[in-house]
């Protein structure tokens, strides 16, 4: 009874909370302005201007924890998100207000085709992210795995090209093709395993290592069988 009353009270308070003025500007002044400058004009040599980057890019950098960055010279990587959902929404809205830019994409991976996605992923993404979407390296930077990337984040990254990743415009990759790619990445997070030992599904390197270990043990066994230990 008491709990129900509490919930009712909270529900009554909720509209008031959302009616508060957007905290985007305040959060921006607190956490972003040092590198990106007031109103997103950028700081030469430190942080890029944010005018026209659009809501999609801002949403990606905030939701993945890429921003805020400890130092402008380090590579952003997925880490603890500093803002809650409401703060992200208001901050994204504030950054998007700097200039007209692409909105947050709304992918529909359920309309995509896994086979087409694999083909497109191999052509456009696998060079860096590997065909299993487990990440890798490009000289000078690490390539993040896509195991924790949500469909919206994938679409945002493909259109924006974060850090040293190339961007893919709609003429290079249509929205339908992007849906297929996301469908494939979702599949690659949990590939259908028909048996055997996946070894992380990261490809031939661990498989080769396992083979070599087995071969090495077999060779040692053969050596022991045909040789004799000389004492002293």
């Amino acid at each position: 009874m008491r709990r129900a009353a509490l919930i009712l009270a909270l529900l009554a308070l909720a509209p008031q909370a959302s009616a508060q003025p957007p905290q985007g500007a305040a959060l921006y002044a607190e956490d972003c302005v040092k590198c990106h400058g007031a109103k997103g004009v950028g700081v030469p040599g430190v942080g890029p201007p944010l005018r026209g980057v659009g809501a999609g890019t801002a949403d990606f950098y905030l939701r993945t924890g890429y921003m805020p960055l400890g130092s402008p010279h380090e590579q952003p990587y997925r880490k603890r998100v500093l803002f809650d959902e409401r703060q992200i929404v208001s901050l994204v809205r504030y950054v998007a207000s700097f200039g007209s830019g692409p909105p947050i994409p709304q992918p529909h991976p359920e309309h995509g085709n896994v086979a087409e996605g694999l083909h497109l992923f191999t052509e456009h993404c696998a060079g860096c992210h590997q065909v299993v979407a487990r990440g890798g390296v490009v000289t000078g930077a690490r390539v993040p795995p896509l195991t924790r990337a949500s469909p919206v984040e994938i679409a945002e990254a493909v259109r924006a090209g974060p850090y040293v990743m190339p961007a893919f415009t709609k003429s290079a990759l249509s929205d339908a093709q992007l849906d297929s790619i996301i469908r494939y990445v979702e599949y690659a997070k949990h590939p259908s395993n028909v048996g055997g030992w996946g070894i992380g599904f990261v490809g031939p390197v661990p498989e080769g290592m396992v083979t070599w270990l087995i071969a090495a043990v077999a060779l040692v066994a053969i050596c022991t069988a045909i040789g004799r230990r000389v004492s002293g």
Partner: protein
Amino acid sequence: MSKLRDWLIAGGVLLAGRRPPRPRPTSRRIVEARDPNTGSELLATVLFLGAAACALAFPFLYAFDVPALTQLLGLSLGLACMLLAAGLVVVGKRVVVTEELEEPYPPPARVWEQEEVVQIVEESTDSISRKRFLVVAGGAAVGSLGIALITPAASLGPVLDMDPFFRTTWKRGRRLVDEHGKPFRAEAIEQQVFYTAYPEHGDREEIGAPLIVVRLEPAELQLPAERKDWAPEGIVAYSKICTHAGCAVSEYRVPTFAPVEPKPALVCPCHYSTFDPAAAGHVLFGPAGRPLPQLPLQIDAAGHLRAGGNFSGAVGPSWWGVRNRKAKP
């Protein structure tokens, strides 16, 4: 040809000819005479001949170039090595009398002791009844394994006619198309994006066909003087085939904010050879020994991208003499 026949005859004579037994220096035996271990000899011979047969199967399988036979290729080589090893194990353990010596080497002055060692070695194999046969079988195993191992050299290609390596379908005026055959318009090439292009009406499987096309800021380009007009509007095209081992250059590293990020580069995912698209494909990092071949570009009246000629150098993985030749139409 006649020289080869002479060698073959000489080899046959050497192999088959009988040799008078070498006189022993002393009549006293050091290694006890024992009965020949014919069973083990036979086993070793069979193993050696099996190894030879497996190894000889390799060139035959290789000649019938069926893709499904790759496992058989591996199997034949693997079995040959295994059988050879097994034969040597049998010879070492069963056929030759073995003895372990843990004495320091005698000073070389005492010649008779050295002769004694020679005698021991010779007498150790005395009990082998078919020594020559065993040697021939072992030699056949090793020889055919050698033949099997050099067989893949046949795939290195024509020894004298190297022209196919330098021929590409690119020539002045040929349009660049995407994988669906649609011609690329220069205005559709955007910065921060990379494109894979092929020659219009050309064989895409050819090693010189695929290109990687990117647009850079014209002011950032550092092309040599003779390539000044190879990059209209800052659009550059390079062969997509890495000059190290021939993988597809499929990584484009392009900074979002240049001052704090690595500069643009084309990277091959196989061994991380890194090329500078702004500086004529110069190698920035990795095992590649020469720059990516650049294709001169032109924009025609309709705004389509066309080749302005052929590549700046030979396309594909590197090998001896590759730098001295040019790509040909």
